[in-house]
C-alpha cells in the first residue's frame, strides 16, 4: 500500500494488555470471568460448609452475610456476564462474517473497566470487610444507618465501574451486528447465537443505565449525605427496589438468552438437522426480551404494592412462559429424528433442557402472587433461581465452551474428561438444588447463617452440601481438561465437529487475526452447511483477495480503567478521618478521586486527538497463512 503506517505490533504480555482484537479480548474475558467464577464458587462452598449441620459455627454470622452477598454479586456480574461476553466476542463476529467488531477500542475499554470493577469489589475482602447487604443491596439495610464501614461502598462503586464495561460492550455488539454483517447475511439468516447476543445487547443497553442511576443515588446517600433512600429525610426505600429490579429483571434475561443461543447452535449441530422453527425462535427471543421489562415488580409482591399491581405483574410474568415454551419444543423437535451425537457439548445442551424446564415451572409457581407470599425469601426461591441460572446459563456456558473451544484455542477439549465433568457437575447440581425446593416449602428462610436442630432441615442440607462439592469436582475436572489440552498440539481443523453449520467453521481454528481472508458471500441460513451440501469445501468469497485494514493496539483502555479504579477508591475513602496530615488533605478534599477521573478523561482526550490510522495486512501474509494451513 502506498501509505502503510508504522504501527508497533506488540508481543507477549504487552500484546494482551494492548490488544483490541475481539478474539483475544474474548479470551481475556474468559480468563477473568473464569477466575471470578472460581472465587464465587469458593464462596458458595464456604456457605454450604456452614449449612451442612444445624447450629454450625464454621463462619461467623457477619462473615456469612459477606459470603452470600459476594457470592451472588460475583457470580452474576463478574463470572456469568464476562463469560457470556467471552463467547460473544469470540464467536459473534465470526458468525456474521465480519473482520472485527464495530468498535475494537471500546471493546477493550469494556473488558478493562469490567476487570477494574471486579478487582475493586474483591479488594473489599482485604480492606476491612466485604459488602454484606445481599446482592440486591436493599435500602435501608444498605444505607449508612445499618451498614457502616466501607463494604457497601465497594459494592456501589465496584459495580458502577464494571457496569460501564458491560454497557459499552452491549453498544458495541449492537452496532457490530447491525452494520458489519457479510454480504447476504440478512437478519433472518443470522445464527441463533448471534440473534440472542443481539437481543441481550439491546437489553443491556436499556437495563444497565437504570442500575447506574440506582448506584449513583446509593453512592450519594452513603458518601455525600443524599436522602434518596433515607426515610428520616423523606427518602423512599421502596424506590431502590423499583430501580434495582427494573434493571435486575432484564438482567436475568440478559444472562439466559445467550445460553438459549448456545443451546440452539449445539443441538442443531449435533442432531445434524436444521434448527426447528428458526423464525419462531427469533420471535420468541425478541418477545422474551420485550416482556423482560414488564415484570420487575414480581420480585416485590410482598412489598405491598396492592392487588392490582400484583395481579398485572403476575400475569405478565406468566406470559413469558409462552415464548420460553416455544423454545423448549423447538429444541425437542430439532432433536426429533436427528442422528444425535452425544458429545460433551451436546450432553450439556441436552441436560439443559429438562433442568431449565424445572426452573421455568417453579418460576411460574412463584409468579402466582398469593402463593409467592409463602415462597418469598425461602429456599424455594434459592432453588428456583439456581435452576435457571446454573441449570440454565452455566450448563449453556459449559456447552458453548466445549463446542467453541477449538475455534478459540485451536485444540479440542478431551471428550472423556468432558463427560466426567458433565456427569459430576450435572448430578452435583441437582443434588445441591433439588432438595432446596423442599427446604423452602418446609419453611427454611434464605440468607440466614444457621438453623436449629429438629426442624427436619438436617438431612436435606447435608445432601445439598455434598452436591455442592460434587459440582466443585466437576469444575476441577474442567480445569484439568483445559490444562491437559493446552499441552496437546494445536491441531484442530477448520470444522472439528465435522457438522458445523455456521460461518465460524469455514475458517481456520483458531481464527486468524483478520478472521476472513476474503469476506464470505452468504447464500442462506446455515451458510456453511448450505455450501457443504452442495459439495463445496469453503464459502464463496464476496471480494477479491486484498490488503486488510486493522486497528492499532492501544494501552489507553487499561489506563482508563486504572483511572476509574483510583477514582473509586478516592471517593470511597473521602469521608474518613485521617487527622490533619497529607493523607487527610488528599482524601478529604477528593483529590485522589479527581486525579483518577483526570487520568480517565486524559485518555479520552488522547484518543480523540490522536488519529488511529491502523495498519494493513498484505495479501502475501494472508496467502502465506493459508499455505501453512492447507
Amino acid at each position, binding site marked *: 500500500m502506498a*501509505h502503510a503506517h508504522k504501527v508497533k505490533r506488540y508481543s507477549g504480555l504487552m500484546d494482551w494488555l494492548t490488544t483490541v482484537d475481539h478474539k483475544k479480548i474474548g479470551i481475556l474475558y474468559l480468563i477473568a470471568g473464569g477466575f471470578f467464577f472460581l472465587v464465587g464458587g469458593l464462596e458458595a462452598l464456604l456457605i454450604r460448609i456452614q449449612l451442612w449441620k444445624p447450629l454450625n459455627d464454621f463462619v461467623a454470622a457477619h462473615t456469612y452475610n459477606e459470603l452470600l452477598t459476594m457470592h451472588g454479586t460475583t457470580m452474576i456480574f463478574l463470572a456469568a456476564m464476562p463469560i457470556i461476553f467471552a463467547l460473544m466476542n469470540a464467536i459473534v463476529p465470526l458468525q456474521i462474517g465480519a473482520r472485527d467488531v*464495530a*468498535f475494537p477500542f*471500546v471493546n477493550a475499554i469494556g473488558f478493562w473497566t469490567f476487570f477494574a470493577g471486579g478487582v475493586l469489589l474483591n479488594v473489599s475482602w482485604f480492606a476491612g470487610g466485604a459488602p454484606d447487604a445481599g446482592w440486591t443491596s436493599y435500602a435501608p439495610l444498605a444505607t449508612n444507618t445499618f451498614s457502616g464501614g466501607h463494604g457497601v461502598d465497594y459494592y456501589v462503586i465496584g459495580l458502577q465501574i464494571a457496569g460501564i464495561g458491560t*454497557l459499552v460492550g452491549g*453498544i*458495541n455488539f*449492537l*452496532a457490530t451486528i*447491525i*452494520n*458489519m454483517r457479510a454480504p447476504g447475511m440478512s437478519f433472518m439468516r443470522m445464527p441463533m447465537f448471534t440473534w440472542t447476543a443481539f437481543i441481550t445487547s439491546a437489553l443491556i*443497553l*436499556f*437495563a*444497565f*443505565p*437504570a442500575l*447506574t*442511576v*440506582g448506584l*449513583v*443515588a446509593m453512592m*450519594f*446517600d452513603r458518601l*455525600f*449525605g*443524599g*436522602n*434518596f433512600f*433515607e426515610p428520616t*429525610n*423523606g*427518602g*423512599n426505600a421502596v*424506590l431502590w427496589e*423499583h*430501580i434495582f429490579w*427494573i434493571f435486575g429483571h432484564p438482567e436475568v434475561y440478559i444472562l439466559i438468552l445467550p445460553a438459549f443461543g448456545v443451546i440452539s447452535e449445539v443441538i442443531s449441530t449435533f442432531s445434524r438437522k436444521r434448527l426447528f422453527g428458526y423464525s419462531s425462535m427469533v420471535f420468541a427471543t425478541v418477545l422474551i426480551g420485550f416482556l423482560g421489562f414488564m415484570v420487575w415488580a414480581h420480585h416485590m409482591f410482598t412489598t405491598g404494592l396492592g392487588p392490582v399491581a400484583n395481579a398485572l405483574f403476575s400475569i405478565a410474568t406468566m406470559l413469558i412462559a409462552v415464548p420460553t415454551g416455544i423454545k423448549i419444543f423447538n429444541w425437542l423437535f430439532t432433536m426429533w429424528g436427528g442422528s444425535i451425537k452425544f458429545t460433551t457439548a451436546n450432553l450439556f445442551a441436552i441436560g439443559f433442557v429438562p433442568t431449565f424446564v424445572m426452573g421455568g415451572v417453579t418460576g411460574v409457581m412463584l409468579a402466582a402472587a398469593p402463593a409467592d407470599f409463602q415462597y418469598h425469601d425461602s429456599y424455594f426461591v434459592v432453588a428456583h433461581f439456581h435452576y435457571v441460572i446454573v441449570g440454565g446459563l452455566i450448563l449453556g456456558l459449559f456447552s458453548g465452551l466445549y463446542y467453541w473451544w477449538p475455534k478459540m484455542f485451536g485444540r479440542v477439549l478431551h471428550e472423556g474428561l468432558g463427560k466426567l465433568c458433565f456427569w459430576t457437575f450435572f448430578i452435583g447440581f441437582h443434588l445441591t438444588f433439588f432438595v432446596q425446593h423442599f427446604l423452602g416449602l418446609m419453611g427454611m428462610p434464605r440468607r440466614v447463617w444457621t438453623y436449629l436442630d429438629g426442624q427436619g432441615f438436617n438431612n436435606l442440607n447435608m445432601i445439598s452440601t455434598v452436591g455442592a462439592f460434587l459440582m466443585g469436582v466437576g469444575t476441577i475436572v474442567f480445569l484439568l481438561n483445559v490444562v491437559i489440552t493446552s499441552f496437546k498440539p494445536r491441531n484442530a481443523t477448520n470444522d472439528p465437529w465435522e457438522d458445523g453449520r455456521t460461518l465460524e467453521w469455514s475458517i481456520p481454528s483458531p481464527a486468524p487475526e483478520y478472521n476472513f481472508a476474503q469476506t464470505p458471500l452468504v447464500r442462506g441460513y446455515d451458510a456453511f452447511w448450505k455450501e457443504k451440501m452442495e459439495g463445496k469445501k469453503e464459502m464463496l468469497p464476496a471480494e477479491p483477495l486484498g490488503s486488510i*485494514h486493522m486497528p492499532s493496539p492501544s494501552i489507553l483502555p487499561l489506563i482508563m480503567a486504572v483511572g476509574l479504579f483510583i477514582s473509586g477508591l478516592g471517593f470511597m475513602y473521602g469521608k474518613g478521618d485521617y487527622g490533619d496530615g497529607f493523607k487527610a488533605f488528599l482524601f478529604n478534599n477528593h483529590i485522589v478521586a479527581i486525579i483518577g477521573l483526570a487520568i480517565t478523561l486524559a485518555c479520552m*482526550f488522547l484518543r*480523540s*486527538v490522536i*488519529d488511529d*490510522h*491502523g495498519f494493513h495486512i498484505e495479501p502475501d501474509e494472508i496467502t502465506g497463512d493459508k499455505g501453512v494451513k492447507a
Partner: protein
Amino acid sequence: MSAHSHVDGKLPHEPEKATLEGRNKVLGFWLFLGAETVLFGTLFSAFLALRHQVGDGNPSSQELFELSTTAWATFILLTSSLTSVFAIQAMHTNKVKSMIIWLVVTVLLGLGFLALEVVEFATYVDEGHKFSTSAFSSSFYTLVGFHGAHVLFGVLWISILIAQIFKKGLTVVTAPKIYVAGIYWHFIDVVWVFIFTVVYLMGKVG
C-alpha cells in the same frame, strides 16, 4: 477507513457517513443516546417520586424556583441547538470556516447556560436548599446536576473538536466526530426541555 480515501481532495456530500467507521460511530452514538434516555428517565422517575418530600422548614419548590432565570437558560440552550444545526449544515456544504464559527457560538451559549446554572444553584444553597437537605433536594441536584455535567462535557468536547478541525481540517475522520457531537448537543437540549417542564414548571404550579 482513513483520511486519505478521498483521493480527489473533495469531501463526499455526507462526510460523516462516507466510511464504515463513520457509519459505525453515528449508529453507536444513537445507541448510546438510547442508554442515556433510560439514564435520565430513571433520574426523572426518582425525582418525581421524591419531589414533594421537602421536610419541615425547608424551602419548597414554589418558594425556590425563579422562572425568569430558568426561562433565560432555556432560551440560551435552545438557541445553541439551532446554532449547532447551522454548524452541521455548514459542514454538509463544506464551509469549514462557517462551521467553526457556529460551533464556537454553540460553545459560548453552552457556557452561558452553565453560568446561569451555577448562579442558580448558589442562590438555592444560600436559601437553605443544600444537597443533603431533603429527598427533594438530593433528587433535584442529582437530576439537574447530571444534565449540567452533560452540558459541561459537551462544551469541553466540542472545544476539543474545534481545535482538531483547525489542525486536521474537515475530513472523513473528523466529520463523524462533529456530527455525533451535534446529536449529543440536541439530546441534552431535549433533556433540558423535560427538566424545564417537569422540574421547574410543575414545581411552580404543583
